């Protein structure tokens, strides 16, 4: 049953391949031009990436896995991942050097590693890893990347450091991916072509002015022009894809994916987002997904486990055992949802290969010890992507070589580890660089990386 859609989609994919010949002059296909064989291969062997962000860190005392290597034991909040042991690598000790102690922008720089002002004020971000991947892996699919958020904002930032907005409405996401266009193909084509000529005109108008301006003061106009050009590309692309029907989702699944839910039933709601992601990957609608699981400021409580406080409120627990217990409970809950996602990615196969094997998934937070805004030793789990060259099954720990062993009974000492990096070379950027390279992004560095993390490569 799980292969049903994929098969139907394979047909559609051949249509795209045929389409390639005809539309070879389109700029967005430049990357594929030199060797159309490589293009065909890229399309045939998808390499997928998913990034999932958890706000406010975790209860680091109950979270910390204490032993490195293959025979590590899952701590309580992580127990539901036991069945995925062979497909995941929990990582301890990573941090983003430029944002240490500056808590206000954790989610904004999780995938960028950029420097931010300490007062939480405005800043210009840099490109996020997922967008670099979308440039390479996004050309074969209807959507080069998919940005969503359950609560909170987008994790994705363009090359100009502009946030790419995330969709939070599940019905909008479903419609975008699978919704059947009400108008006829001809009407849509007319609309797209009209948009195309309008974009041409407004771009010309902006260009005429840009040519008269010095290079130093063009930033806003450049921003406009870049945006207009990208929409032109999207419009052309949408036009190309008009001939390819959107993937058909079986009625029963479609009904499930179109339910109107809210955070009042958090678990169902989270799984709806995960199901949409799985369906987007199964149908090869996109190969790059970012999803903010919660907002730093205002992630709702989880009524079904009896917790009504916001996650932010819980993270400022002041050591209160009850608050800490609840924080652990929500950590457990969030990991449980993640485990469900991995289940689904395993269950659905593409040919003989589980979707999980061609999908690298990063799950983590930009905060560790939320109470005092400690953002070293970030909670981080890498999963999936075996066919992309990963070797899983161990707990990779950058703290233990220097500290010998953990002692979470001494809370203050452990909070220290979560506030200041033990190994200053253990950087999130190294992991992001590793992930970039696994999916063919030609990069030798990313932000402040000092190298790839070879321990997780097969």
């Amino acid at each position, binding site marked *: 049953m799980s292969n049903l859609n994929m098969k139907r989609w394979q047909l559609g994919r051949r249509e795209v391949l045929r389409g390639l010949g005809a539309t070879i002059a389109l700029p967005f296909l430049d990357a594929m031009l030199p060797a159309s064989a490589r293009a065909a291969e890229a399309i045939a062997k998808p390499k997928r990436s998913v990034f999932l962000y958890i706000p406010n860190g975790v209860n680091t005392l109950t979270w910390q896995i204490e032993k490195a290597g293959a025979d590590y034991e899952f701590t309580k909040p992580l127990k539901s991942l036991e069945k995925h042991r062979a497909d995941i690598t929990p990582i301890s000790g990573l941090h983003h050097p430029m944002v240490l102690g500056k808590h206000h922008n954790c989610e904004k720089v999780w995938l960028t590693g950029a420097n931010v002002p300490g007062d*939480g*004020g*405005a800043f210009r971000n840099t490109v996020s890893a997922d967008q670099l991947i979308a440039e390479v892996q996004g050309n074969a699919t209807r959507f080069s990347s998919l940005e969503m958020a359950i609560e909170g904002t987008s994790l994705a930032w363009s090359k100009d450091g502009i946030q790419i*907005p995330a969709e939070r409405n599940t019905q*909008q996401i479903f419609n975008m991916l699978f919704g059947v266009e009400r108008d006829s193909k001809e009407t849509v084509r007319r609309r797209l072509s009209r948009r195309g000529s*309008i974009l041409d005109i407004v771009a010309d108008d902006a260009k005429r002015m840009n040519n008269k301006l010095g290079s*130093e003061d063009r930033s806003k106009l450049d921003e406009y022009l870049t945006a207009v050009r990208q929409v032109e590309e999207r419009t052309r692309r949408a036009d190309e894809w008009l001939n390819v029907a959107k993937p058909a989702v079986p009625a029963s699944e479609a009904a499930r994916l179109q339910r109107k839910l809210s955070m009042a039933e958090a678990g169902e709601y989270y799984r709806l987002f995960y199901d949409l992601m799985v369906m987007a990957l199964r149908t090869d609608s996109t190969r790059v997904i970012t999803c903010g699981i919660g907002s730093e400021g205002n992630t709702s409580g989880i009524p079904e486990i009896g917790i009504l406080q*916001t996650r*932010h409120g819980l993270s400022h627990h002041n050591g209160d055992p009850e608050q800490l217990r609840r924080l652990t409970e929500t950590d457990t809950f969030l990991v449980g949802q993640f485990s469900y996602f991995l289940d689904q990615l395993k269950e659905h196969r593409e040919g003989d290969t589980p979707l999980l094997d061609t999908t690298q998934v990063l799950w983590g937070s930009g905060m560790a010890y939320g109470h005092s805004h400690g953002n070293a030793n970030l909670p981080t789990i890498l999963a999936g992507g075996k066919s992309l060259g990963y070797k899983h099954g161990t707990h990779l720990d950058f703290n233990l070589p220097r500290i010998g062993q953990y002692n979470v009974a001494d809370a203050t000492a452990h909070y220290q580890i979560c*506030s200041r990096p033990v190994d200053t070379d253990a950087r999130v950027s190294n992991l992001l660089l590793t992930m970039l390279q696994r999916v063919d992004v030609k990069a030798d560095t990313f932000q402040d990386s000092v190298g790839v993390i070879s321990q997780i490569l097969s």
Partner: protein
Amino acid sequence: MNNRLGVTAVIAAFALLASASLQAEQPRDLEQVMQPFLKKYCVECHSADVQKGDFRVDNLSPKVGTENTPQWLEIMERINSGEMPPEDAKVRPKAEESARIVEWIAARMKEGEAARMAARGRVSFNRLTRDEYVNTVRDLIGVEYDAKDPGALLDDPEWHGFERIGSVLTLSPSNIEKYLTAAETILAEAYPDPLPANAKPAPPFGGSKPAIVEEQINERHRERLRELGLLDKVRFEMWPGDIFRGSSIGQLPEPGVYEISYKLSGLRPPQGRAPRIKVYHERLDRVLFEQDIVADEDKPITVTFRAHLPKGHQSIFVYNDVPGPSNTPRSGRHGEVPFISTKIGRIPWQMKLTDEAGHARYPFLIMDSVSWKGPIIEDYEQQVRDDYMPREEGNMQQAREGLAKLAKRAFRRPVTDEEVSHYLRIVQSELEAKETFRNAVKAGMLAILNSKSFLFIAEGDENASRQTLNDWEIASRLSYLLWNTMPDAELFALAEQGKLRDKAVLEQQVARLLADARSQRFTDSFATQWLRLKKVGMFQPDKNLYPDYDKALESSMVGETKAFFGEVLSSGLTLREFLHSDWSMLNLRLAQFYGLPEGLVSDDDFQRVSLPADSHRGGLLTQAAILSLTSDGVRHRPVHRGVWVMESIFGKSPPPPPANVNPIPTNPTGPKATLRQKLEAHIHDANCAVCHAKIDPLGLAFENYDAIGRWRTEEVTDGVGENPKVTAAGKLPDGRTYQTADEFKKLLVEDLDAFNYTFIEKLATYALRRSMSFDDRDHLKAIAAASKAKDYRVTDIVTALVTSDLFQKR
């Protein structure tokens, strides 16, 4: 003490400098003056190795005045204020040494001003905010656009609360896609497809219907009531949480603005909350209307509102949105016996609505009827729509004229024939693609609504360097300042005549714009941005700790602060009122929340109320919205309150907390202590104490108010033993002390000039859509002096800003 003297000396020196450019030549040499000072006093903490406060001095450009300007200004200000080098530094400079450095940097800044201005771009582009877009489109084409509905326009990023700062308002491809879709929707509504020649026109829409129609009534009761002559007296009773689903009178024929009215009574239990009607559109996920209702059972009132709605079927639910007993058991159901009056008893198993004296036991609503009217297109709306659409099919000359009119108003400036030709080209290419004439013209309009000149408010000239605004740009700046929308016909006419640089004309225009109802937008928007009101409710108060808190209370809190600002502005009051007043703007809900005596306020409208002497309210600082907006949902946060006062009242941003401070240890089981005691216990780290000494006293004055702004004398907290008493006493950095929030407010009033300057700086930031820099200081000081001369009257401050040279500067 020493420190203060030093600062005064420096300030004196600084003041001298401004008028003393002809005096003894300042030492120009970086090596002689600056470097030894930096080496001796600064690099130890601010170089590559240490970087305290994330600040380095060793890598700054030596071109002081033209490069690294923010950093050099930062250095100048920190030294000038005596903050740097810190008191605990091993060696500290003498006051004269510091003064010399400050003078030197200030002189370089002055010299660099022209160069810095010239280095700015020739044209500044300020993207319309979401609100500005909606208002502008309404005035331009006469169509209401629901920019906040799911999938419509995106939220705008903000900078220190300001949402209209050009450099911060970025534009992504998603914005452009959404603008395209928005414009398509707007034009489709303005110019609907004409009916086919043989089609019957739709029947007129509108009318009213009773809340309970005859068919809904059980037959037995229907006949009984008919005989009694009571059939038309049936009403629909709504207890707390109840829902009325019968609002629809049929499909809406067109998208547009509709007027909806409900006739109803609202019974409020003695001392209790009033019932509240909330009209919610489920599919649009939008609250169309909400209001507390107080009206006797036999004197129902009619509430009327307008909403912009899509065509077709609507999913509208009307709630009595007020807490009350659970209605899930059988006793909470509507029985088969239709409701007519509380004087007629209910079915025995039903919950009683009134007590023996006939008073309501719960806040409940009694609904009589609903009526609809629309779509409503005002004359001026139809007129602007007609302005742009050719009257004759296929007339290209008229198409050109229409597009030229639209472009001129949309771009808020004259347009060239060449520009219009570009848009006309689209019309031609659409016609070639076999599009209808009407649709082809709409494509041209679509292009105008997506061009840079509409989406951005541009200032400057691409062909030449120009540092002041032209008349058209002044018209826009003024109109967006006070009305949040494009200039109207009068402003355009004045721009056309070149009169808007005339200060007497500007003064008249400020008066005219402020007198218009649209200036409400300035009140709401500026108050929200200056005071950071969007933060209210950002961390939702914990339901267990603050059960009274709900959305209605939240909007009442914000409503008070906005209405207060509006009252100060429109009644000619002064800045002092913001700091302390013996009145406020309250509605019933808030008056109850503040624990004020019954009878001061009777309904949901905000009205000016004289506060009793012991109210503990007055001025902005002790309003619930302000006290709440810094809370984290569980506790009040005195340090954040202090930072808010520092930024909003004194216009200073404290330096960010140093990175890498040791984690705060936790202390859950000790004896109960107030947050203040806990804070004071661990500010022993000298690095922290230095700044906290300046911040904390500004927030600790409000210890008598909890996280949602309720008055209290003790703090409810974790731990063992009695709840500790709170203390609101403190000492300002300049040594003045206070015992209570009221005393603190009086100290602020004594220091009105500092607040005056801040208020003007905030207003100018809002008006000019950019942060104020060193180069604006003299202008700001001039406006501050004008304000003082008018006894700090807020309307006069607005006028002084608009008629200042600063207002005409890019």
